[in-house]
């Protein structure tokens, strides 16, 4: 008898998820391991599939608006903005300037809220427990502004096709200013906790490297792309909702490892505050709703609008057949595309890095599965 026992097997197949807390939802990753080394991965998605694109075909344009909030539920406002812009393009109208300014403020506030949740959970996955408490504490302030503005904290349904439904409340500008002033020292505080910490640096440096060329091959967008050194931000490249009026930098780094993505997102939060400060000082007066009829019935045609969501390029492709319901509504979610690069990033790495890389991709499974 050959003395081969099960202990001699060099390859081990391990299921990570769908209940694993570090997969940020219901992602299942099948890992092929040789000891601690990852030989290959396979992602199984679809546990959170709700058929949002199919739902769109059975709802009117206005009725589908609350559903888009439920895709990337961490950045619901950005989703709403993308959908509203797509339908507005289809209707060939534009939101009034006041609505655009308020939209920019709320979208940037949502970017901060989304990045804060990413930072907290990412650090928690790596093993730093403290930042999650601080991040959620500051995120709470942002959510309070959402609650005061539109009545909901997470799935906001803040924007309507053609502009805004809600006028800003009394003290909205002051709340935004207070948030900006409060927030910048807090970002410094997170950086003090993490940026130079030797465990943090050791766990993140040179982990999950994705070069600029590979990013382009996979179609990866957002902070992951910018960390690889590509200066690509849709807010600058094809400005929407009046972003051309505001001054801000696109933070980039060179290596494209997990540590660089962390630094890019931290800098993005500061730039968001910068945009909010400029926007809140220059909210124009005027109407908040464009000329949209009670029944939204676009002419036959199609429209594609992509915006820079916190996670990357978020696109909405809406086809109209002239009725009150979209013929087809296709979503290009950033998380789904970014997730495809996971195998390239962790192949050859260690099993402990899998958690770090999933965290740094900043995926939301509601958006991946739709």
């Amino acid at each position: 008898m050959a003395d081969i026992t099960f202990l001699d097997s060099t390859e081990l197949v391990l299921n990570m998820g769908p209940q694993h807390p570090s997969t940020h939802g219901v992602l299942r990753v099948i890992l092929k391991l040789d000891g601690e080394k990852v030989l290959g991965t396979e992602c199984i998605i679809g546990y959170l599939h709700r058929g949002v694109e199919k739902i769109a075909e059975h709802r009117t344009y206005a009725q589908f608006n609350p559903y888009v909030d439920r895709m990337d539920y961490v950045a619901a406002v950005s989703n709403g903005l993308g959908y509203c812009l797509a339908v507005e393009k289809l209707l060939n109208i534009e939101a009034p300037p006041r609505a655009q300014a308020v939209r920019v403020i709320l979208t940037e506030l949502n970017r901060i809220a989304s990045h804060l949740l990413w930072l907290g959970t990412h650090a928690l996955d790596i093993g730093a427990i403290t930042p999650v408490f601080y991040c959620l504490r500051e995120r709470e302030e942002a959510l309070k502004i959402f609650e005061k503005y539109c009545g909901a904290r997470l799935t906001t349904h803040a924007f309507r096709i053609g502009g805004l439904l809600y006028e800003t409340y009394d003290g909205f500008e002051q709340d935004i200013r207070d948030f900006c002033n409060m927030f910048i020292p807090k970002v410094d505080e997170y950086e003090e906790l993490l940026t130079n910490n030797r465990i943090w640096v050791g766990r993140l440096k040179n982990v999950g490297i994705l070069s600029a060329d590979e990013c382009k091959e996979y179609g990866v967008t957002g902070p992951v792309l910018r960390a690889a050194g590509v200066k690509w931000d849709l807010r600058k490249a094809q400005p929407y909702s009046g972003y051309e009026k505001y001054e801000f930098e696109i933070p980039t780094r060179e290596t494209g490892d997990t540590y660089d993505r962390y630094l890019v997102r931290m800098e993005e939060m500061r730039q968001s505050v910068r945009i909010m400060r400029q926007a809140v000082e220059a909210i124009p007066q005027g109407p908040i709703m464009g000329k949209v009829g009670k029944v939204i019935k676009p002419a036959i045609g199609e429209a594609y609008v992509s915006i820079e969501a916190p996670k990357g390029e978020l696109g909405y492709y809406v086809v109209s057949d002239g009725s009150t319901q979209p013929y087809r509504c296709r979503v290009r979610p950033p998380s789904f595309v970014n997730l495809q690069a996971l195998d390239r990033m962790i192949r050859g790495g260690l099993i402990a890095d899998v958690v770090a890389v999933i965290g740094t991709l900043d995926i939301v499974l509601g958006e991946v599965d739709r």
Partner: protein
Amino acid sequence: MANLQNKIVRAAKSIFLVDLFQGLWVTFRNQNPKYIYTEQYPAERPKVAERYRGAPRLNINPDNGETLCIACNLCALACPETLIVVSSERNEVTKRKELGNFTYDTSRCMFCGLCEDACPVDALELTQDFEMATYTREGQIWDRQMLEEGPKPTQYKC
């Protein structure tokens, strides 16, 4: 020279665990009681915003106690989940349409607020009540009486 100096500074920082103490100093600063954000929920009830979209309510006219609803069915048409059912009957004496029953399935509601936008007479409204838990699924389907009275959650005092 500067290179060597940098190396020495870095080595010293690494030996004396400067980065770790820097982080500990942040956590120490945050011990200040003014940074405590815990809400003592059942004892201290949170104040939700004025525009909060919570439990639905069917408003009644405070003067005569009659419902404001004109049974126009616009809320049922606006609802993406079609969870509102309005039934009406014609009053033979006044020849006007009057509201019969009004059911609202809160278990399927996503509180988007489209129904209150659609209401032409401000009869249907999403209120600041947020405690809507029940022990049965049937209890989640609210009829006209429930919608007019609103939920009555148990309030605890500590």
